[in-house]
């Protein structure tokens, strides 16, 4: 469960989030949307402990991120999958190694790591590229590697930041099906996007951000 109470975030004076409060229940599926620069990425990064809120409180499964120690942040991140808007892949490691890393940090045993990594790559249509390096992939392929890395560890929470910006409509639909499947298995999913096609015609909850404020929810 994710709870935000009056969260503010500013970067050296310019505010990126202003008084954001909401709550995502365990197992919920939520979209965060809003124009470029609204604060979507900042919001997701704050929930992930990658950015500290200037004020306010964030609770993840009851743990207050403002009071957490470094070691605990690492443990928390192992249970949260994050698809970064800019992918954040390691360019000198292969696709396989990039995805496997998310499991290796948990200390999982090698054969389990191998099995799960292959499975994740297969579900994203990347198994043929497992020995390639990120810079040898197309934009969309890189984005899918980032998604694979986020889901490989069966996270309790999945935070996806613009996960389909480089994908064609067919793949976008496939990814959404994948996220729904993961959601069905009990994972809490938060997706930041401005892709209208993703948003339209679904009954899924949407949080609208603008200039750092929540302006609408539906």
């Amino acid at each position: 469960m994710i709870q935000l109470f009056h969260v503010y975030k500013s970067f050296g004076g310019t505010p990126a989030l202003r008084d954001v409060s909401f709550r995502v229940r365990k197992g919920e599926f939520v979209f965060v949307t809003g124009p470029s620069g609204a604060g979507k990425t900042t919001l997701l990064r704050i929930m992930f402990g990658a950015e500290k809120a200037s004020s306010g409180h964030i609770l993840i499964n009851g743990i207050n991120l403002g009071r957490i120690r470094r070691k605990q942040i690492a443990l928390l991140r192992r249970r949260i999958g994050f698809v970064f808007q800019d992918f954040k892949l390691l360019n000198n490691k292969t696709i396989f190694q990039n995805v496997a890393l998310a499991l290796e940090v948990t200390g999982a045993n090698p054969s389990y790591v191998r099995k799960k990594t292959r499975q994740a790559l297969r579900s994203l249509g990347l198994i043929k590229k497992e020995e390639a390096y990120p810079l040898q992939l197309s934009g969309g392929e890189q984005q899918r590697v980032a998604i694979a890395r986020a889901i490989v560890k069966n996270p309790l929470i999945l935070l996806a930041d613009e996960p389909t910006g480089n994908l064609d409509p067919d793949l976008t639909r496939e990814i959404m099906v994948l996220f729904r499947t993961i959601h069905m298995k009990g994972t809490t999913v938060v997706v930041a996007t401005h892709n209208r096609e993703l948003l339209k015609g679904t009954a899924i909850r949407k949080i609208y951000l603008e200039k750092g404020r929540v302006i609408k929810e539906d």
Partner: protein
Amino acid sequence: MGKLLYFIRQALLNISQNKLIHLISLGTISIAILILGVFLLLLVNVEGWIKNWGGSITMSVYLEDNLPKRQIAVIRQALSSREGVEIQRFISKEEALIELKSALGPQSELVEGLTRNPLPASFEIAIREPKTDPASIKRELEGIPGVVEVQYSEAWIKRFRGVMRLVRVGGMMLGGLLCLGVLFIVTNTIKLTIYSRKEEIEIMKLVGATDWFVKIPFLIEGFIQGATGGLLALVSLFVFYLIMASNKGIFLSFTLLEVVFVPHFYMTAIVGLSSFLGFLGSLMAVGRFFEV
């Protein structure tokens, strides 16, 4: 255990995936360590040469006049049986006079007017025991029957000790400074190789790696780099030594000096220091990037 293996594998992988940078830094490290090594090699040898050259005090053992040949043989026996003493030659009364004449040169008139030879016969001996006090050796040898007096030059010994002290103290100071310099160069080089991988560290932390999970492969990498650099330096030093030893005639023209390699202790110390510095450099560099 399995974990350590994982980390070592990871470190080796990282090295192979950043080959160019690692090769460059390896080069720098081994050259820096080699400079230290050459310095040590020279220090060890110069100390040895000085010891050899000045450490063998020459003493003159003057004998009573008119000793029978038999007793002279006994004294020779007594001298040469003492450890550390090497008899260089025996100078009879006649030889002593001839030598004095030639030593006096234009003042040799002095000797012309003599009716009898006042000079004693003597043994010239070399003492290769620089640590024992020469005064006590003198006393000991003067106890041999038939020996009148033993002479050596105090001034020479003092000067020799001064030179030794200069070389030791100077060597230690320079060596210390050089060590500091090399320490600095090696750790800095390791830092540079790591700073270019700032992003890698950040990403690893973002996928949930603990500080140590990120650090350990870097530390192992640093250690491996340092150790390899140290070993390379040692091998190059040995090559340098071989060249020096086989060409000593060329530049050490005026004496035939022995060239020796650095003792085992130093060899271990060189590689150990290098490995430690590699490790330390990584530790310092990696520490900086943990504010994610």
